């Protein structure tokens, strides 16, 4: 294992992660629309948006540009890593919720499963970048904590909405993070 200070070139893992993030970005909108379409009104209403809905267990992607720009590599990658770790766990939860609420919707369930796998793939790529940059990899945490199993169907629909929405936001942010790193560590 390489020691920090003598890293291998981070360009390749950054490039790989960047490509994956770009690919994910193309599908996030479809995932959100598919998800909302299956939840019924008001979710499926045209132009539905509820930005005030948030999940405490999921870090928001929104960040001021100044703060974001001032982040060092470790913080930048660490926050993204934490977010996608939480997202992959939440996508699993949403998948379970939807297999209960919409058991006859294989398209939605497949898209949720695919999103979760891509989030995990991006996590792996980010870990490779951090290794290449000699940064410490944060330990995997149980971001969900105590799962609110007693959530009502409506709460679960909202939860899924927030997760799929934030998945899109975090993917957008990851593309920018990685583009920044790509510029910083050219191959």
């Amino acid at each position, binding site marked *: 294992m390489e020691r920090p200070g003598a890293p291998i070139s981070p360009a390749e893992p950054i490039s790989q992660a960047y490509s994956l993030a770009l690919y994910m970005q193309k599908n996030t909108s479809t995932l959100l629309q598919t998800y909302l379409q299956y939840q*019924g*009104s008001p*979710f499926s209403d045209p132009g539905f948006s*509820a930005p005030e809905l948030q999940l405490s267990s999921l870090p928001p992607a929104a960040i001021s540009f100044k703060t974001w720009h001032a982040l060092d590599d470790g913080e930048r990658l660490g926050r993204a890593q934490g977010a996608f770790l939480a997202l992959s766990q939440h996508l699993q939860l949403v998948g379970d919720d939807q297999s209960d609420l919409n058991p006859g919707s294989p398209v939605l369930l497949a898209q949720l499963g695919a999103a979760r796998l891509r989030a995990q793939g991006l996590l792996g790529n980010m870990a490779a970048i951090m290794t290449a940059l000699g940064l410490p990899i944060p330990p995997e945490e149980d971001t969900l904590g105590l799962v609110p199993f007693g959530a*009502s169907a*409506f*709460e679960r629909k909202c939860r899924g909405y927030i997760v799929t929405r934030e998945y899109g936001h975090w993917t957008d942010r990851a593309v920018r993070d990685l583009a920044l790193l790509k510029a910083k560590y050219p191959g």
Partner: protein
Amino acid sequence: MAVFAVFQTTFLLALLSWRTYQSEALSEPLPLTPESLKVSINSTQQCLHLQWSVHSLAYHQELKMVFQIEISRFNTSNVIWVENYSTTVKWKQVLHWSWESELPLECATHFVRIRSMVDDARIPEPRSWSSWSSWEEVDEQNSLGHGTLFVFPKDKLVEEGSNVTICSISRSYQNNVSCLLEGVQMRGEQLDPNVSAFHLNNVPFIRETGTNIFCTTGRGDGTGTVLFVSKVLEEPRDFSCETPDFKTLHCTWDPGRDTGLPKRQPSQSYTLFESFSGKKILCEHKNWCNWHIAQDSQEMYNFTLTTENYLRKRGVNILFNLTHRVRPMTPFNVVFKNISDTNATMTWQVHSIGNYSTLFCQIELHGEGKVIQQHNVSIKVNGNYLLSELEPDTQYMAQVRCGDANHFWKWSEWIGKNFSTLEAAPSEAPDVWRNVKSEPGYQTVTLFWKPLSKSHANEKILFYNVVIENLDEPSKLQLHSIPAPANGTKLTLDQCSYQIHVTANNSVGTSPASVIVVSGDTGNKEVEEERVNVTEDGFSMSWKPQPGDVTGYVVEWCDHPRDLPCDLQWEKLGPNTTSTVISSDAFTPGVRYNFRIYGISTKRIAYLLEQKTGYSQELAPSDNPQVVMSNLTSHSFTLSWKDYSTESQPGFIRGYHVYLKSKEGQCHPGFEKAILPDDSVSCKYKIYNPEQKTFVVENLQPESFYEFFVTPYTSVGEGPLDAFTKVTTPDEHSHLLIRIILPTVFCVLLIMIICYLNSQWMKEKCYPDIPDPYKSSVLSLIKSKENPRLTIMSVKDCIPDAIEVINKPEGSKIQFLGSRNSLTDTEITQPAYLYLLPTEKNSSGPGPCICFENFTYNQAASNSGCCGHVPVPLEAPSQLGLLTSPENLLKVLENMNSLGEIPAGETTLNYVSQLVLPLSRDKDSLPTDPPVPALCSEYKMQMAIPLGLASPPPNEKSSVSSVTLLDQGEPHH
């Protein structure tokens, strides 16, 4: 037992009296007070669950009691429910009671209290309520957790059409909550400053995954709940049970709609309960269930079919005697035996339904997809039935089903099988008709027959046999075998009578024969053709019944009369029939069909009775006649269309329309104004007789322009609009001129011909030949005296010495049209004598000088007026010209030398001297030499010029030829 009861009652009375005494003594309420009241909540079912006990009961004591329960909402004074609950209370018993709240219990604090009263008959009146228990408070709001807005109930399962109350709790001060069901605002009610209720009546089913209700305060916070609406559970319909074999009962029903919701409520279940046996089974299928019949042969059954889901339970009941619910199993082993051409025996077997049971079976025979026969038969185990009246060589399907003969309930399923009957000879004689054409010495008989129907052919027809029997010589028989599928044959027979038998043959045998007779004398008289009536069904025709024995009638016609062969059709009718309607798919509008009706005598000879003709639908004429115009005068012309055939038209021609257009625009008498299809206006004359094919258009104006057009018409309309023929009437007088000029020209020509034919006579009369002195008979007399020279003077022997020019009044103006010799101005006013001297050596000749006076020989004749001027050849003016002036003399002579060069066209004829041309002995001497007399002597010479030489016919060619002669100077003998 009775002793024990008495003891117990006594004990109870004693106890109560003791307690009464005690209460009176202590003045305290009866101690049978509900105690240990506990209230719990079932949020899912929105139920308040109460439990309490009555401690004061004695051991094994049972007492009927009434408990009064009061429920308040929000505060104790707001009582929303009071209910009396009666029950028997035992010693140490914990009592339970539930109350379902319309409002979700999370939305409001509820208070419950209870009191009791003994309601047992064993306890004497008066009775009074115990004191109330203390209020028990039930408040779920404390457990709501964080948040500002809550909506209840959560994930509630309801039936479609039910009423639901939704409540919201807002923890914000500005409580203005609105809720939407699938985008539709719900009617709200404020229950409390923080609590609102929304009443939802008749909840609709929207989707299996639930109906969202979304609530918001309008200040950015929102939440909701999902209602899971299921279909209402229906009662099973058409529930019935039957047994095929007394071993199992097969029960079926119509389950109605499925009330299942995925992951929320499974589909409704079905349970079968039989009350006599007390057995109960859970059905695996939603619409049928099998019940095993026990060996003890239970006869009556009382079934209850129960269906239930989370929300409802329903049941239906049937009671029946097992023996009345027998539906046999499907018969089996169907076999056909002894199949012939018309019969077959069907056998089958059935499953036994008991030792003494009888089955009632139904047999159906199908042919070509239709039920032909139906039979019923009772059997025990083996069934058989003879199917008869079948068609040979035909495929059939027979099927059988059975029911219980004793107590018929239902038929079994059908079981069927196909079979085919055997082949047979054709059963009917072919339908034969004939067409006879008599020729001198023989007759041509064309036979036609129709193919036999499948039911009569019985198998494929292989050939037809035609047997011809000469009735005059019965021993003579001819057999013709004609292979199928021919539908006719042609026979050439002599004039004898023949009986013709036609049979159809298949591989099995021969059909009955169809017999017709043709006689040498067909006896077909000419009958008048009548028009036939046309109805919707076809051509309707009737004919007069024939006196005497007629075995039938035949109507024949051609389906395609314009084709060859014309597809002869016929219809045979019975002897009592005198009318029929002929229809055919081949009948097309606009085609004339001819029908011939024959009567068939007892000798089977056909006699033509009537002829009919008609159209299935008449059409307007398709073309117009070729009209010929003749006799055009200034006032009329004649139109004629004799070649137009009225027979071959697409309808009966009723007449003609003659259209006439004129510039005047006014119609002549008899014509009427008509507007043509092209909207032009014309005059129309109607001819009502189709055979009138000429028409004289009269009363026309001379030198006027007319247009005409003739078209036939039928009952449907007239022919197509064609181009009008244009005609202009001639001038009124032109024909007169023609009448005069033509005869005049003819007369002139006639006279000319006559003149020509009599020209010789005319010539002799008008200008006879000048006698030639050389040819005179006198000459011969002189010759005989051998002194010819002394008698006649030769001109050449004369030498002119002077020419006397005489002024001639009639010839005063001589025109020479020749270009070179134009002497028009020359006038000879008085006689002049020109003295001519010999100028050339060869002109010298012997003889005395002669004065030549140019007196024409024929002047007298000219003066007589009998003949006109005689044309003279060219040399005459030349000679004349040289006479006019002395200077011209030499010129003239030169010209004479070159006479041959004078164009023939320039030669002109005029009145000139006539003289005998010099007949030179010397060829070298020029004929144009002027006649120079050797001696001057006064001599007036008159000579006749031979006709053939000096008087040429009045044409240029002839003059040229004479000039040529002159040029050559050859003697004319």
